[in-house]
């Protein structure tokens, strides 16, 4: 069902955990299947220095969380914001059709975390 890449990220997910005192936090719930994902950012000089996630969800949800954190780490906020659901799925060599919605979780959570950071900066 899942590609080796998905299974690899599911088995050894990168960047699991929380950041104490994060620069930004994004949380999304998937209304269709009820899963939840949380992303924590540490931003310095507009660059994502550190990123962590916590996910309650299926294999695809965990793998996409892991992948999106890996993709975002070290990028500028503008670059990170460009990461699309599709790009995450592609980096995992694809997801089964019925699991495409899980990849939305990851990219959306990242965007929300960046938004949260920007909002905090604006104040």
């Amino acid at each position, binding site marked *: 069902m*899942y590609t080796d890449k998905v*299974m690899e990220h*599911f*088995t050894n*997910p990168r960047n*699991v955990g929380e950041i104490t005192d994060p620069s930004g936090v994004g*949380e999304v719930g998937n209304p*269709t*299947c*009820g*899963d*939840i*994902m*949380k992303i924590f950012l540490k931003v310095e000089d507009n660059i994502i220095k550190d990123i962590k996630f*916590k*996910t*309650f*969800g*299926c*294999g*695809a*949800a*965990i793998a996409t969380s892991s992948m999106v954190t890996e993709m975002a780490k070290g990028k500028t906020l503008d670059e990170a914001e460009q990461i699309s659901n599709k790009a995450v799925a592609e980096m995992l060599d694809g997801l089964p059709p*019925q699991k495409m*919605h*899980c990849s939305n979780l990851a990219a959306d959570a990242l965007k929300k975390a960046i938004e949260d950071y920007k909002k905090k900066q604006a104040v």
Partner: protein
Amino acid sequence: MRRVYFDHSATTPVHPAVAEEMYRYVNKTFGNPSSVHFFGREARKAVEEAREKVARAIGSRPEEVIFTSGGTESDLMAIKGVAYANCNKGNHIITSSVEHHAVLDNCKALEKEGFAVTVLPVDADGMVSPDSVAAAITDKTILITIMHANNEVGTIQPIHEIGRLAREKGILFHTDAVQSFGKIPVNVDELLVDFVSISGHKIYGPKGIGALYIRKGVRWLPISLGGGQERKRRPGTENVPGIAALGKAAEIAMETMADEAARLTLLRDRIIKEVMENYSNVRLNGHPTKRLPNHVNFAFEFIEGEALLLSLDLQGVAASSGSACTSGSLEPSHVLLAMGIPPEIAHGSLRITLGKDNNEEDVSYFLEVLPAIIDRLRAMSPLYHK
């Protein structure tokens, strides 16, 4: 890697003696039972012998058993067959909220066609109360369809009590015994049922074969049309190897049922005891005692079922879950929801269903690999706080 198959409610391996019986009718005795010649007569004999074996296993007469392509078709035939045959008498059907989709979806389809369907609730253990059945019966009720044992949580329903109600009122009564048959006694006269669905691949027989018991003299119409096979009740060239195999599987199940039930109950109870003792935030789904001897279902809070299954699979343990993410339907199990389990907890359900090749070592192995998996997934979960 050690492989432990703990998913016998999904399907079972074929018993070697059943496979052998099947091969005979694949390799040698390949005739069409409708043919008058030698090859045909041999095949006919196999079909009728298998019918006797299945009949013996459920305490019916052979001519009350017809062969189908599986539990799903048996359910369809029973439900629609009764509905269409009795629609001049009434239009009301009673079922429960924990039935298999093969029952529920046909009831829903009939509802669209103008039948009225009462879907009875269950209690927290997944049990239908006979009182609720009694209260639902109207003078328009033509069919009650309540499963014998639930596939997801293992709860065994009070079929005999419901059967008594049905019989008093002269209402036809179908039970889906796909999960119970071969594990606990299924006797049509003790259960007081008029229709029983069974399926081969749940009792160490092959996939694609099942049977439907139809009590002699009841009002029922065939759904499948075509040739004259199964006395026009289920046309199509008979699946002779499948039928012979189902007969053999039923025979073996009857011989081994009592001992296996005792043996598996011990394994089951060991799993239940150790898991309930060693984890916090876990519950046993289904009735604590009125459950199938081989059946365990837990809900691990803060964990999603598919992730749990994949993790177990990586350790060689095959199990299943009622989580939305595994079902493709994006909704957690309707059974767990009907039992009042909140969706986020239903999500973390784990079904362990034991079978003939499982032993103490399998259980030990499972209990050994489980903690690290639960810890890892909980540590990853945004819902979990130690």
